[in-house]
């Protein structure tokens, strides 16, 4: 089987459009996931049992079911609930809810890593709870979390091909469409794989570099 370089080159712009959609979904989904993760992590540490239980239930449900099926449910259930969103937003919500459950665990670990003395000092100085969180706990918890968040960002990027199942025109969908129209599978899928590598390998190296620097 030959690899047609001219054809491969000719489909790059179309695939690049898909890549842009992918990046857009990942960035928005990641922001949502970080917010969800933070909320869930704080809920896990709440003094109220109901809130702790609810967030534990959320975490274990979202972490024990496949993202793809979650996306299907969201895609079909949201319109039934009277919420019609473009597929892209459904994808962002799906990624955000799913990865939020993972990031929550990382946040919780990082928050618990803040020494107890810091909490006690905040109480001794009569800080109210939101000041304690904003000025004392979170700034200390966030720094060691950066590499972890980076890994989730890359993980998320690699999960985006799934969004094709709910009709989002991202990179994988674009490659599939080209393959379906031209009956050439080699070039679209190879170029797609290279695009994935071109983004995920440098990003992973970047985060490794940041991690090493933050240790020194």
């Amino acid at each position: 089987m030959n690899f047609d370089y001219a054809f491969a080159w000719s489909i790059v712009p179309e695939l690049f459009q898909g890549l842009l959609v992918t990046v857009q979904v990942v960035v928005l989904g990641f922001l949502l996931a970080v917010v969800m993760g933070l909320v869930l992590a704080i809920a896990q540490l709440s003094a109220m049992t109901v809130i702790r239980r609810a967030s534990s239930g959320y975490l274990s449900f979202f972490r024990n079911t496949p993202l793809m099926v979650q996306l299907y449910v969201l895609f079909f259930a949201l319109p039934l609930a009277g919420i019609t969103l473009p597929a892209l937003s459904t994808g962002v919500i799906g990624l955000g809810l799913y990865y939020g459950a993972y990031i929550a665990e990382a946040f919780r670990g990082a928050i618990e890593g803040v020494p107890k003395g810091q909490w006690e000092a905040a109480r001794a100085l009569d800080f109210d709870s939101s000041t304690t969180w904003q000025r004392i706990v979170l700034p200390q918890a966030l720094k060691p979390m950066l590499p972890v968040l980076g890994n989730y960002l890359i993980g998320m990027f690699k999960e985006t091909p799934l969004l094709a199942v709910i009709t989002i025109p991202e990179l994988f969908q674009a490659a599939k469409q080209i393959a379906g129209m031209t009956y050439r599978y080699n070039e679209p899928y190879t170029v797609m794989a290279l695009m994935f590598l071109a983004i995920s390998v440098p990003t992973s190296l970047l985060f490794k570099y940041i991690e090493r620097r933050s240790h020194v």
Partner: protein
Amino acid sequence: MFIDPSAVETARFIAGQLAHGALVTLQITFFAQIVVVVMSFVIALMRLSPWRAVRWVATVYVEILRGISALVLLFYLFFILPLFGISLSPMTTGVLGLGLTFSAYGSEIVRSALSNVSQGQRDALRALDFDSVTAFRRIVLPQALPFMLPPMGNQLVELLKTTSLVSLITLTDLTFAGGQLITTLGQQTLIWSIVLVCYFVMAWPLSWLVKRYELRVTAWRQGNTV
């Protein structure tokens, strides 16, 4: 409440289809996990090898497989390999694709657990003149295993969930069965929700076991070091 016999019939039909799909899902998970364990150890040992070329090959393996997503690899194996005259059955493609992808992560788990075994233990092995196979089997592996098993278990849960991808390469797993039911019955939200619950029922006990084991290991480790 009045129970409609046709509703019972439909429910039984749905249950049968999903049970069959769930069985395929478990099968793929099982075989892929074998690939994961074998390849994780091979690659981890290669990465700890004294020869630079071997280390380098293993690093490239890990970086590439971690850089491409599982679905992309599956499609690559499914659509591109036949063009080179290598035709794998969907089952083999699924098992290999998922097994290789997860082994890239698994090898990191194995590697870090193996390098966790202390230098003193290694020195003792040399002093006692153990050959390397005995040393690995009797001393290094038993000490590394408690570090390895919890993350490996979590990874197994991830693998179980990720097998849903194989529905896209025509394997009749749980997700595929759900899709088929929807083409015959409609009811997308209901059926996808049932499928979601099925996955949860399979994955949750595993997660629970991992958590329990992790607590025990942590307790053991703290008892040991304090």
